[in-house]
């Protein structure tokens, strides 16, 4: 075994340049990681705090709620006026829309999953019940996974409406889980395409004299409420729900009164409705 003498030709390794700690990518990576963690936390909070859909009411309880909201005193309609409702109703110029019995028709196109449809059905039922009678209404709630989840409402899927003044046609295109349900006729689809280019629901055509899309108040007014609770809130004219829902119902009533040439007088001749009719143009 031979060994090199010490110090003979020793290659000297260059001293390693000291590299200071944190690489440049650490900052952005830390920002991204913290954000991802926070967003994941939000999603978990959302998942835990989203309430389960309320169980639909029985037929008897539904009938009770419908009776309660469709027998509100005239004084309450007059006292609230437009309330907090947002007037979305726009005049349209089209061939008068008539229904199956030849009377001026109110056409509704919506979906059971849709929270805005859920909100708008309440005033629609209240307003149309001043001109006729619904039967077959069932309770449901909007989708649990959409905005304003589980907004309590009714569905028009099996409802029928009779009136001596107007016809009503309700089309629920999807159920609350977004499965296809009912389809508008070709003529109804044409109206939808004509007056609702954005495809927004709910779409309501009032005899082709007026039309609107969306809800006249935000669905959060009904958050975490049951159907009987909403019905009870509507008995109190000072409640946020009454101001929003009855205010919207008054606007719809005014539009329908325009369709029926102010019939019946008991509904249409009130100063409140006459005032709102002027607003509609």
């Amino acid at each position, binding site marked *: 075994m031979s060994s090199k003498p010490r110090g003979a030709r020793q290659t000297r390794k260059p001293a390693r340049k000291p590299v200071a700690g944190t*690489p440049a990518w650490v900052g952005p990576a830390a920002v991204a990681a913290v*954000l991802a963690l*926070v967003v994941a936390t939000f999603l978990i909070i959302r998942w835990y705090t989203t309430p389960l859909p309320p169980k639909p009411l029985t037929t008897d309880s539904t009938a009770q709620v419908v009776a309660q909201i469709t027998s509100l005193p005239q004084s309450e309609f007059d006292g609230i006026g437009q309330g907090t409702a947002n007037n979305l109703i726009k005049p349209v110029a089209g061939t008068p829309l008539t229904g199956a019995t030849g009377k001026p028709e109110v056409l509704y196109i919506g979906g059971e999953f849709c929270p805005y449809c859920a909100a708008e059905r309440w005033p629609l039922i209240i307003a149309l019940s001043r001109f006729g009678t619904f039967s077959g209404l069932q309770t449901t709630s909007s989708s649990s996974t959409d905005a*304003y989840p589980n907004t309590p409402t009714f569905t028009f899927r099996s409802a029928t409406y009779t009136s001596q003044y107007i016809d009503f046609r309700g089309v629920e295109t999807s159920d609350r889980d977004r499965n296809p349900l009912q389809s508008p006729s070709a003529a109804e689809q044409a109206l939808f395409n004509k007056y609702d280019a954005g495809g927004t629901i709910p779409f309501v055509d009032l005899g082709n004299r007026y039309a609107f899309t969306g809800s006249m108040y*935000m669905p959060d007014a009904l958050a975490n409420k049951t159907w009987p609770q909403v019905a009870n809130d509507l008995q109190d004219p000072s409640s946020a729900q009454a101001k929003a829902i009855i205010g919207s119902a008054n606007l719809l009533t005014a539009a329908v009164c325009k369709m029926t040439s102010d019939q019946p007088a008991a509904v249409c001749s009130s100063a409140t409705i006459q005032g709102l009719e002027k607003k509609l143009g």
Partner: protein
Amino acid sequence: MERARLAAVGLSVVGVGISIYLTLLHYAGVAPACPTSGAFNCDAVLSSSYAVIPGTSVPTSAAGIVWFAVSALLWAWRFGPAHLVWAGVGLLTVLYLVFIEIVRLGAICLWCTAAHLLVVTLAMLTASLSLQGRGLGRGA
């Protein structure tokens, strides 16, 4: 560094553009081009009570115009601690708005998300450059 600054100014200008678009839509009462149902729903977000600065009728997107405009000015100037502070303000605001979208509304506005991503990108750029500026990084 120069390229990063230019990119940041460019991103800020894009942010100003998106915020102006959303602000104009708010005042026109028109929904943006965006899905209107399901988890992605601009309308649910932009028509909610959270779409305005609390206590005012000014849309939050107007605050976005201010934030991105100031960001563009800052990045056009010399890099400094103000960038860190401004990025922090932006990030905290984005976190609040994302909290509202996910937890309160259960809906995401795609246009808002585009603006949020711009804020996050600018914050990441700020974090990266501030590490380099302190001489802690290996350089770009």
